[in-house]
């Protein structure tokens, strides 16, 4: 891999707190190595800002290996930047070249209010899980793990859906700010598994109701969510959730 350095212009959304009005601010960063991660590039800028006595840019991040789901930047109009199936923390600077301008915004959705700069409040996702994203089994109630054989294909599909990291890129990418991909991933995982069967109907109804209550928009099957999902969560989960919802509502009435 050939390494190189670059100078960049960043246009970053700055917003003091949830009540204040935000604005874009421009920064020049110099001598950025192509081997750096995107967040390390922001670290470099922040160290400079602190040295100059300015307020560093606030952003969410934690594991920096693409699994905790905390990082959340909207980079040049795309959640998590240009790479396929990737999180911001795993984006590396070799994606850019000298002289590039990069625009960085927070997730934008009514249900995800900005806390500061690039940080948003995603607690709505927790509340959707609270509405039914679980199997009601108290500790100690379980039978032997091999007592319930599960078809490999179903187990694999459940895993694919369960791989969701709850970052919210799907909401940020959606023109309606819909949380259907997130919600359907959990509904799918649990409806594919026999353990999830007893609560199958109430789960989908309650989770969808909570999703609506939080102010997420409706789904128009555009597929922007799937295109930006760092974990490749498939749109077919939404179809499965719609089917689950439909059959649950019929029985409910």
């Amino acid at each position, binding site marked *: 891999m050939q390494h190189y350095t670059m100078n960049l212009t960043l246009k970053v959304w700055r917003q003091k707190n949830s009540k204040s009005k935000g604005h874009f601010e421009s920064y020049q960063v110099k001598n950025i190595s192509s081997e750096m991660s995107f967040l390390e590039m922001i670290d470099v800028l922040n160290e400079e800002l602190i040295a100059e006595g300015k307020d560093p840019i606030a952003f969410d991040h934690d594991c920096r290996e693409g*699994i905790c789901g905390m990082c959340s930047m909207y980079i040049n109009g795309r959640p998590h930047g240009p790479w396929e199936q990737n999180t911001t923390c795993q984006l590396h600077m070799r994606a850019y070249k000298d002289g590039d301008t990069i625009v960085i915004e927070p997730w934008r959705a009514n249900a995800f209010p900005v806390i500061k700069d690039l940080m948003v409040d995603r607690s709505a996702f927790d509340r959707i899980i609270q509405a039914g994203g679980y199997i009601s089994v108290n500790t100690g109630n379980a039978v032997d793990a091999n007592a319930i054989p599960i078809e490999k294909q179903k187990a694999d599909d459940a895993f694919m859906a369960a791989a969701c990291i709850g970052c919210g890129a799907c909401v940020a990418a959606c023109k309606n700010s819909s949380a259907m991909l997130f919600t359907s991933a959990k509904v799918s995982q649990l409806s594919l598994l026999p353990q999830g069967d007893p609560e199958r109907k109430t789960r989908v109804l309650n989770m969808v109701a909570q999703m609506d209550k939080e102010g997420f928009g409706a789904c128009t099957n555009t597929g922007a969510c799937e295109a930006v999902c760092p974990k490749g969560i498939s749109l077919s989960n939404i179809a499965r959730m719609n089917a689950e919802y439909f059959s649950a509502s019929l029985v409910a009435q």
Partner: protein
Amino acid sequence: MLNAKIPAGPLNEKWSTYKSTCRLVNPANKRKLEIIVVGTGLAGASAAASLGELGYKVKAFCFQDSPRRAHSIAAQGGINAAKNYQNDGDSVYRLFYDTIKGGDYRAREANVHRLAEVSGAIIDQCVAQGVPFAREYGGLLSNRSFGGTQVQRTFYAAGQTGQQLLLGAYSAIERQIALGNVEMFNRHEMLDVVVIEGKARGIIVRDLVSGELERHFGHAVLLCSGGYGNVFYLSTNAMGSNVTAAWKAHKKGAYFGNPCFTQIHPTCIPVSGDHQSKLTLMSESLRNDGRIWVPKKQADDRKPTDIPEDERDYFLERRYPAFGNLVPRDVASRAAKERCDAGFGVGTSKQAVYLDYADAIQRYGKIEANKQGLSNPSDDVIIKLGNEVIKEKYGNLFDMYEKITGENPYETPMRIYPAVHYTMGGLWVDYELMTTVPGLYALGEANFSDHGANRLGASALMQGLADGYFVIPYTIGNYLADEIHTKPIPTDHPAFVAAEKEVADRINRLMSIQGSKTVESFHKRLGKIMWDKCGMARNEEGLKQAIEEIRQLKAEFWSDVKIPGGINEMNPELDKANRVADFIELGELMCLDALSRNESCGGHFREESQTPEGEALRNDADYMYVANWEMKGEHEWQLHKEILDYEVVKPSQRSYK
């Protein structure tokens, strides 16, 4: 004198005896008892959920924006359990024995045996929650093997086992939140423990969004705050992982056990430059199929694929024929360091070795070709089929490697190097997981208890969940049975006021320094001292120097750190400063502990104590104890030993040859 409260009786009956004789709290009284849980990783989330299910009033705290983000989520390879589903001779005793041996005979037998006993129930519980473990075509669970064992007892979900287990525990805690049994405080950081009349009665936290300090009462406090590998600055830990909660407990009287026991993981992506903010692990499961090697010639600059087989040194297979590439982590790490120090390292920095899949791809490719009935398949077909198998097993890890390095590991071997990964040391706890402060517990990586001087792969997830799901629900009742008459203490009690003032004063002091150097720069310097002098190899002279350097660094930090922003607002730099200040103090204690343990054991390698072949040389006559440190004042600690009494296992020199 430390009393570990190990139940009497034969080893394999201790836990069942304890469970049948410990005191219970009736359901009506549970509703009146409040429990604080700090941290929501596997240990914290499973404890909070299980205690909520029992009817206790639980308050849980995490510094992230959701309990689902805790760093347990990043664990890749798997979780051990003595299920013996593979019929390959596994048993509770063998898991217990492997863990004690893997820990180089520095762990407590009774705790480890209990861990092995409950391991099976963990898998049952997780499957019941809907955790999608890998399965075979018959619908039953799949296993793979990990370092330091000769059976297949590791359950896994691709390379995302920690994620799936944590999301299981997260769903359990969210369910309890919905039911009102657990109250959750996201983006809150614990900054002190409140001790009243000798018992832990609450905590002081900072709301990281508003900057306000809050007081919370609890009849008991559980610290499930993880490990402290970030003292090295560069580690596989998350950026926010910190020692602060445990350190505050230490300052309030909890002893710190074996602080120098650090796990350096052999297979991480090497450092690429000064900008590096963290290191990324490549799961140990990769050593199932990957072969580790360096060129036989020093400073060989050829491309790895151009180096012929007989010019490669598969140094683990050469030195440890019995376990080969699956030796425990401490052994593999030191062997890699030895080759690099001797000039055989690869890559631009020469601080790396190869982890190669070419053989495994061939092997799997041929098996697949056989299955599909292809006769005389071409090399391309074999490689294509082999790559598919490897992708299913390790795809996400290979993708991650490619994203970080820009190299395709299906075509060229990975470059790897050891990095700080886990800390076996932690708060000392007794059999009931209680620290030396009554009512203050430590679970999971935050305690010292089960892994001795080296943790085996796939055992951290097991321990976190064992502590939270199956140990604390019993042991906490034994303490709380005496607390049913204790009314909740109002948080205007002088002890709460004083603790909050102490926290506020310290924050004010930090913010008033307004010096010239950033928090990050201090953290980096601390990390360098620790890595160079208290890392994979340690010696007396270096450790003494390190202690001096850390003391100087501390003085400089408290007179010259520069923290922007204000106190009563979101201020990530201030959060970081609070953590780094504690890491600096911890660093000194780690060096002190490493200095006082003049033997090599597990991950702790004292250069003065090695065999002629360069293997770690234990000294059981003088050091078969847990070193517990009590803080007496600034730069001042007193050592309390818990002598380890091996009733069942006979300690021997560990050999993987």
